[in-house]
Structure formats: structure tokens, C-alpha cells
């Protein structure tokens, strides 16, 4: 069985999409876990500062999460809007 370029592109795109979101979610997950645990212990120590800590935590979580979101966007592009797929279709 030999594969033409179209099926090669499809296979590689789908496999890479899975790998991208899998590896791309490991780092942010660990980072967010650390951030939340630190914030919780800070709130436990200084309940008066809970407002500031929560706000900073949310902004920080959004910053960390954006790396995972980049991976997700790349995955979605690979699956739904793959430029190489369209190139070989034409």
C-alpha cells in the first residue's frame, strides 16, 4: 500500500495535533497547580489580602493558560484549517 501526499498530510496532521495538545497541556497544568497551591497557602496565612491575591492569581493563571491556548489553537488549525491539506487538495 503506498500513500499519496494527501493521506500522508492527513496522518501526520492528526497525529501531530494529538501530540501538540497532549504535551502542550502538561506544562501549563503543572504551572497552574503550583500557582493555585501557593495562592491558597498565602490566603490561609493572610486572609485580609484575599482580594489582591485572588486578582493576581486570576491574571497569573490567564498568563500561564495562554501557553496551553496557543497549543490548542495550533491543534485546531492542524485539524480544521490545515494549509497543507488545502494545498494538496487543489
Amino acid at each position: 500500500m503506498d500513500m499519496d501526499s494527501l493521506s500522508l498530510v492527513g496522518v501526520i496532521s492528526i497525529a501531530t495535533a494529538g501530540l501538540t495538545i497532549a504535551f502542550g497541556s502538561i506544562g501549563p497544568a503543572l504551572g497552574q497547580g503550583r500557582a493555585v497551591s501557593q495562592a491558597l497557602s498565602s490566603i490561609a496565612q493572610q486572609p485580609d489580602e484575599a482580594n489582591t491575591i485572588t486578582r493576581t492569581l486570576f491574571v497569573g493563571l490567564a498568563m500561564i493558560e495562554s501557553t496551553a491556548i496557543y497549543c490548542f489553537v495550533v491543534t485546531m488549525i492542524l485539524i480544521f484549517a490545515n494549509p497543507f491539506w488545502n494545498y494538496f487538495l487543489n
Partner: protein
Amino acid sequence: MTINPDEIVFFQWGWFTINSTIFFTWLVMFLLTLGSWLVTRKLTSEGELSRWQNLLEVMINGINDQIREVSRQEPGPYLPFVGTLFIFIAISNILAIVPGYTPPTSSLSTTAALAICVFIAVPIFGIAHQGVMNYLRQYLQPTFFMLPFNLIGELSRTLALAVRLYGNMMSGTIIVAILLTITPLIFPVVMQALGLLTGLIQAYIFAILAMVYIASASMAHQEIEKKGEN
């Protein structure tokens, strides 16, 4: 299923197209304008407040408090820009529970436009606050060699602002669409409820980050002044 609502065309006349992003942006703008006009038509400062005036006052007070806490300055000049960003993004994300509605924020065009607004607003507020020379000098801090890195930082945070909002909102619609094909009964509703939460948090984060960027451009001067006083 599409990751780009710009491709859903409602109306086309020659080169003039109304796609779903433009249509729903206008719808949100219309709702906001109409709502504000209806509420602010008869404002009172004495006697009993109307329920809607109370709502608006609570929102404006909340936004003012947040701006004051983040920037440690009076919120006056920043309220119109940051408040508009927050309310527009929040309303367009919350309306996602209405069937048939695609949030305009799930299109990269909208989020890029909003991020470019922030990108332009930062130097405007910075220059208005501390003058052209002082603002430009900020790019040379701490040394001259940091200039390219400061410029790259300015661009990359704009890109991050756009892609973060886009990715979060787009992932919400995609996940609901995928779940509808697998478990159409209850789980899409759960994910949609979660989508409401992420939508509000993303609106909050977008506005807060815009405020942080603007404050950092207009705060450096004050710190230098304080050091000089000491």
C-alpha cells in the same frame, strides 16, 4: 463546525458582505447602546433609585474600584476605555447561551481589533500622562540595548491578548459542538455553563491586563518622582 465565524455569511451584495462576526458585533453594540440610553434617560440622585440605575451604578463602582486597586490612580481617565472593553466582551460572551448566536469574540478578527485598541491606547495614555520624551525614554530602560526586547515585548503581549481571548471563546463553541455529536443530552449544557464562567473571567482578564499595560506606561514617571522626593 468551523473555527472561524467570519466564514458564516449572512448577506452578500457585491464586495459588501455581512458575516456573522460583524452582525453579532453590531447586535451587541445595539443592545448596549439601547440599554444604556433607556437607563440613563431619567437618572435621579434623590429619592428611590430605579432598579436599572442601581445595576449600572453597581457595575461602574465595581469597575472603578478594580481600576483604582490595579493602577493605584484615580480611575477617571481610564474608566471609559477599560469599562467599555469589559462590558462589551462580557456581554458578547454571556449571550453565547442564546441559541443561534456565535460570540463575535470567538473570531480572531474581533479579538485582534480589541488587542490593537489596547496597543494604541497604551502610548496615548502614557504620553498624555508623562509627555512624549519621558514615554519614549521608557523604551531605553534599563539600558539602550534593551530597546529591541522592549519593542518585541510590546508586540508579543498584544498578540497574546488577542489569541488568549480567541482561543478561550473558540474552544468553548468547539467543545460544545463536539459534545453534541457524542453525548447530546446533558453534558453540552454543563460545558456551556462552564463557558459562561470562562467567558466572564476572560472579559475580566482582558480588561485587567489592558489596565495593567496602561498603568505600567503611565506609572514609571510617578515612581521616579517619588524616588526624587525621598
